[in-house]
C-alpha cells in the first residue's frame, strides 16, 4: 500500500469532516428550481471537504467548531438594550434560531421590491433567484476554496430573496434572535439590485449558537446596494458569514459591519467587479473583550476598468481578545485605472491581546493605484495626557480615543443617523467594558 502524503491525509480529513457534518444535518427536500444548485453545492462540498485547521486560509482562525457536526452550546445573554435599528422606518423580518418568525415580521411586500422566503419560493419551478442562488458562491470558490459557503448553499434551511426594481425607500431589516442554547442556523439570502435600483439591507442579532450565513448580491449596472450589519450580544456564539457580490457597470456596493462580543466570528467578503466605473467599500469595526476571536477575510477582484475598492477595518481588543484580517486585492490583466485601498488597524488595550494581519496585493495591470497598510498600537499616551489635563476622567478619555480610532470605519456609512446609532452602541459597550 502506498504511503499517504500529508496533503492526502489532510484532504481525507476534510472529506471525512464534510461527511460527518452531512450525516448530522438534514438536507432540505427541494423539488423546485433550487434542487439543482443545492445538489451542485453538495458536490462542491464533498469535493472540497470542510476547512482543516492546517489550511493556509485558516491559519489564524481554527475552523473546527464551525465545521464539526454539532454546534457548541452558547448561553443567551441580555444586555438590557433595545435592539438596534428599531427606530428606523423599515421592512422588518425576524428569524429566531434560524427559523422565520412570521408573527414578529412585517408582511413580505414593499414598494419597488419583490421579496420572498427561500423556503417558500423554492417550491416553484422557476424563480428570478434561480440564476443567482449558489452561482455567485460557486464563482467565489476560485482561486480560494470556501467550503463552509458551499455547505450553506446545499443545506440552508431558509433565507430571504430580495429583488429591488426601483429605488426602495424603506430598508429591509433582518433581525436574528437567539433563544436555544444549542441552535445551529444556516440561512442563505439572495439580493438582486436591478439597473438603476437602490436597496439598503440591515442585519443584526446573535442568530444562534452557531450561525452560517451566505448573502449573494448581484448589483446590475448603475444599481446601488447598502448593507449595515451589527453582530453583537451573546458572548459564546460562533458565526461564519460570506458575502458574495458581483458588481456591474457604474454600480455601488457599500457594506459595514460592527461586531461586539462573540467567541468566534469569521466574516468573509468576496467582491468581483465585472463592469467598469463601479465602487465597492467594505468596512468593519469590532470590539473584543476576553474570549473573543474575530476574523475579517476579504477578497476583491478587479476585472473591469476604473473601479474603486476600499477596505477599512478597525479592531479594538482587550483582555486577550484576538483579531484577524486577511485582505486581498486582485487586479486582473486589463483592469486599468483600478483604485484599490486597504487599511487594517488594531488598537490593543493591553499586552495580552493580539492582532494578526495578512494584506495582499496581486496586480496584473500596469496603470493602477493600489495601497495597503496595517498597524497595531496602544492608546496614544500623549493624547491621553492631553485629555486628562483638561479634566476628562481616564475612562471617558479612553472611550473617546477608542471611538476616534474606529471613526474612519464608521464614516464609511453614508446614512449618518444609522452611523450615530452604531456609535452610541459602541459607547455603551465601552461603558460596560471599561475598567
Amino acid at each position, binding site marked *: 500500500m502506498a504511503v499517504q502524503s500529508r496533503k492526502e491525509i489532510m484532504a481525507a480529513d476534510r472529506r471525512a469532516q464534510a461527511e460527518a457534518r452531512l450525516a448530522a444535518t438534514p438536507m432540505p427536500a427541494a423539488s423546485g428550481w433550487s434542487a439543482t444548485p443545492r445538489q451542485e453545492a453538495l458536490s462542491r462540498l464533498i469535493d472540497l471537504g470542510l476547512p482543516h485547521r492546517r489550511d493556509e486560509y485558516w491559519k489564524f482562525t481554527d475552523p473546527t467548531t464551525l465545521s464539526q457536526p454539532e454546534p457548541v452550546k452558547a448561553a443567551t445573554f441580555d444586555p438590557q438594550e433595545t435592539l438596534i435599528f428599531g427606530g428606523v422606518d423599515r421592512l422588518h423580518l425576524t428569524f429566531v434560531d434560524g427559523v422565520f418568525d412570521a408573527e414578529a415580521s412585517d408582511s413580505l411586500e414593499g414598494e419597488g421590491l419583490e421579496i420572498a422566503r427561500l423556503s417558500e419560493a423554492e417550491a416553484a419551478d422557476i424563480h428570478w433567484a434561480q440564476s443567482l442562488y449558489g452561482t455567485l458562491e460557486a464563482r467565489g470558490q476560485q482561486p480560494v476554496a470556501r467550503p463552509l459557503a458551499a455547505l450553506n448553499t446545499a443545506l440552508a434551511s431558509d433565507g430571504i430573496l430580495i429583488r429591488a426594481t426601483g429605488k426602495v425607500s424603506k430598508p429591509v431589516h433582518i433581525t436574528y434572535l437567539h433563544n436555544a442554547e444549542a441552535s445551529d442556523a444556516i440561512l442563505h439570502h439572495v439580493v438582486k439590485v436591478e439597473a438603476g435600483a437602490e436597496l439598503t439591507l440591515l442585519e443584526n442579532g446573535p442568530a444562534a449558537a452557531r450561525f452560517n450565513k451566505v448573502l449573494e448580491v448581484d448589483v446590475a449596472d448603475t444599481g446601488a446596494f447598502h448593507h449595515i450589519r451589527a453582530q453583537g450580544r451573546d458572548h459564546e456564539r460562533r458565526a461564519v458569514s460570506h458575502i458574495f457580490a458581483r458588481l456591474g457597470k457604474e454600480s455601488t456596493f457599500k457594506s459595514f459591519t460592527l461586531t461586539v462580543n462573540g467567541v468566534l466570528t469569521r466574516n468573509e467578503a468576496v467582491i468581483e467587479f465585472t463592469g467598469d466605473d463601479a465602487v465597492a467599500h467594505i468596512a468593519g469595526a469590532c470590539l473584543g473583550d476576553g474570549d473573543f476571536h474575530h476574523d475579517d477575510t476579504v477578497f476583491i477582484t478587479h476585472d473591469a476598468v476604473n473601479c474603486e475598492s476600499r477596505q477599512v477595518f478597525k479592531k479594538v481588543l482587550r483582555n486577550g481578545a484576538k483579531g484577524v484580517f486577511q485582505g486581498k486585492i486582485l487586479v486582473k490583466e486589463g483592469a486599468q485605472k483600478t483604485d484599490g485601498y486597504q487599511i487594517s488597524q488594531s488598537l490593543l488595550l493591553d499586552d495580552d491581546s493580539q492582532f494578526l494581519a495578512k494584506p495582499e496585493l496581486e496586480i496584473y495591470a500596469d496603470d493602477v493605484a493600489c495601497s495597503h497598510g496595517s498597524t497595531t498600537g496602544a492608546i496614544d*499616551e*500623549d*493624547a491621553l*495626557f*492631553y*485629555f*486628562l*489635563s*483638561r*479634566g*476628562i*476622567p*481616564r475612562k*471617558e*478619555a479612553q472611550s*473617546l*480615543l477608542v*471611538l*476616534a*480610532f474606529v*471613526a*474612519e470605519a464608521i464614516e464609511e456609512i453614508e446614512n449618518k443617523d444609522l452611523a450615530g446609532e452604531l456609535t452610541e452602541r459602541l459607547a455603551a459597550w465601552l461603558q460596560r467594558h471599561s475598567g
Partner: protein
Amino acid sequence: MLEIKNLHVKLEEEDKQILKGVDLTVETGKVHAIMGPNGSGKSTLSYVLSGREGYEVTEGSAVMEGADLLELETEERAAEGLFLAFQYPVEIPGVSNMTFLRTAVNAQRKARGQEEMSATDFLKEVRAKAKSLKIDAEMLKRPVNMGFSGGEKKRNEILQMAMLEPKMCILDETDSGLDVDAMKLVADGVNALRSEGRSFLVITHYQRLLDHIKPDVVHIMADGRIVKTGGPELALEVEHNGYADILAEMA
C-alpha cells in the same frame, strides 16, 4: 494660589535629577514668568505640576489653594482649576474640537458638583470666545488640532483656557513658533483672562512674550532651581545680556 517648596524631581526611567529644589510662590491674581536657558527644567516643572507620567517627585511639595497637587490625578488637578497650555498641543484625529471642549467643560463641572452646561449655552459661549480669538466655526468642527497651523494650535489652547476658566494657568512656551502677529493675538487672549482671582505662570525662553503679557514677577531658572527673582526689569536684563551674566553672577 500656588506654593512650591523644595521640589525635587527625577526622570522615572533613568536616574537623572531634573529639578533640584524649586521654591516658588505665585500669589492670587498675579502673573509670574519663568525664564531660563534650554534644559533648565522649566517644562519639566509644568509637566510635574499637571501630573504627567514619567517623573518622580523625590522631595518637596506643590500646593494649590490648599490642595496637595502631587496627591491628585491629572484630571483632578484640572477640576481643581489647574490648566496647562501645551508647548506642543496634541493632534487628536477623530475627536472634534467641539466634542473635546464640551466633554472637558462638563467633566470639570461634574467633578465640582455643578450641573452640566446646556448645549445651547455651551454653543453660545464657545462661539463668542472663539470669535475673540479669531477661531472660525469651521475650526471648531475639525478634529482637535488636526491641520491647524502653529498659531492656530496656540490660539486653541487659549480658547480651552477661556472655556475652562481655571484659577491657575501655566503657559509652557506659548510663544514658541509664533510670528509677531500670532503672538499678539495669543497675548491679547491671555490678557483678557487676567483677573483678581486668577494667577498665571508664564514659561518662556524669550523676553518678547513678556512685552505683551506683562508679568508682576520674573524668575530665572537654571539647572533645576530658581536662581534669581525680580521685577519685569529682570526680563529686560536677560534680553540685553543673555543668561550668561546672570548665571556667572550666581556661580
